């Protein structure tokens, strides 16, 4: 499971789960994360899961690196993934107004945008982690044929709701933000809802995401319809 624990500064543990970025490694990270959340240790102030790392921040007033490391290494792990994680459906409009990088993607991949979209919608994606900006999910893996690098010069402002792809990953810009991913469409769904204080992020690490295509009219009427 954890291959190595070092310190990140004086108030965080840096847990390495292995070099490979794949589902198996990430599921180990997420399982550990869910177990830790379940334990609710008062000295732990934050836990950040990512592809292959888990960073555990702690309150230096209550513990220190050696003490908390020992505690973490002695945790008995339960299998919690199946209970906690869910499947989420996300509507996406790929009208040229929203697919800001359709031309770039077409020319880089030498495939028609229509085929690219078809390919993108053809499978479910797995949420490796959430973050950077509030609620932003990092999802994967997109098919080999539609993988490409990020923009040479990142956008200063990516519109809220944008769906981006880069390398084997896709994401959703939950807020307007700078960013360099290739934008293929936009979702009218609010992914981060601060009114839902218990669970403000719609997509959490370990969740499955299924994107589906909607028309411009459906997009425009989305938030009235509900």
């Amino acid at each position, binding site marked *: 499971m954890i291959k190595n624990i070092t310190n*990140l500064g004086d*108030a965080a543990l840096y847990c390495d789960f292995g070099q490979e970025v794949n589902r198996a490694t990430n599921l180990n990270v997420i399982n550990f994360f869910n177990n830790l959340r379940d334990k609710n240790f008062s000295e*732990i102030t934050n836990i950040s899961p990512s*592809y292959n790392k888990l960073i555990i921040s702690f309150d230096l007033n209550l513990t220190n690196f050696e003490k908390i490391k020992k505690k973490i290494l002695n945790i008995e792990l339960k299998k919690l993934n199946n209970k906690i994680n869910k499947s989420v459906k996300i509507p996406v409009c790929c009208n040229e107004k929203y697919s800001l990088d359709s031309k770039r993607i077409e020319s880089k991949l030498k495939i028609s945008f229509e085929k690219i979209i078809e390919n993108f919608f053809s499978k479910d994606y797995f949420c490796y982690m959430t*973050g950077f900006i*509030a609620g932003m999910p990092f999802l994967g893996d997109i098919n080999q044929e539609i993988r490409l690098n990020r923009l040479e010069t990142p956008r200063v402002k990516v519109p809220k709701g944008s769906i981006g792809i880069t390398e084997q990953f896709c994401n959703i810009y939950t807020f307007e933000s700078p960013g360099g991913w290739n934008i293929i469409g936009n979702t009218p769904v609010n992914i981060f809802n601060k009114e839902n*204080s218990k669970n403000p992020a719609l997509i959490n690490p370990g969740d499955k995401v299924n994107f589906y295509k909607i028309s411009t009219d459906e997009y425009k009427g989305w938030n009235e319809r509900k």
Partner: protein
Amino acid sequence: MNTKDGMKENNFEVIRSGINTTYQDFGRKNLYHIGVPFSGAMDNRNYLISNKLVNNKMNSAVIEFAYQGPMLKFNGESTTFAITGDVNFNIKRKKNSILEKGNSYQTYNLKSGDEIDILSTNRSVYGYLAIAGKIDVNLFGNSCSTNTKAKIGSNNGEKIKKGDKIFFSNSDNKIQIKKLNYINTKIEQIRVIRGTNYNYFSKESKNIFFKNEFNVTKLTDRMGMRLEGNKIKNIVDTNIKSEGLIKGTIQIPADGNPIIMLSDHGTIGGYPKIGVVISADYDKLVQIVPGSKIKFKEVSLSDAEKLYKFYNLETQNILNQIS
């Protein structure tokens, strides 16, 4: 409802907002995994002192300002406030229109129509205004801290702006006028523990990192501090697999210019980490003004832990001086 608990009777009207004026408290925990950072008062010690001076609970909401602070007019019967940090401010009394020069670390009473004009922070960035009683704030994740990026916390996640009203209920406690002798010491060096990608950098660059001075650029805010002056050369890979960040982390992007993550930072990053600022020096770090120099000194983890204990003890001693 508001009238009943006195919220509507007492308020500060914002005549001038200042540059970056927000509601802050300790910050919020356990939300990194959904992309929400700690936030909270940047300079924790000055935040605590401000609340202690007006006899508030230690985790009460305060007004944080940066560089130029707000100008506020008090509406209500009477109130008590204190300002902390290295701050230049005036009090304008309605009664006689006399401009009274204010001192940080001292409590003042206000009567209806009196104004506080927070002109500037001196050779520092952040200052705090604590009001005796309870400011009417909204919580997200058990914290009122405004995070303008995620639009969460008080004031709908926005900075305090001109025309806003800061509502509060007066303290039930009788507030004595208090004064604390305290000077914000400037720090020579910011102490740093090696980061998890320390070996991504050339030997020469590692030397430079701990030997040379860097300039703090204007691209510095509650999210991060960007430095310039010496390019740190990466010899392994300018990207790592995206992973979690914590405040104080020093990342080196491809251009070689360090970025230090501050309280409102993005929670995930893909640049190698050369170091992390120790917890004991964070309050001092955030007060370094753009345009000035910064120098790093390497310390061990066990030294960092000792220094934090010392920092904490010192903070407690200061708070204990305020009875």
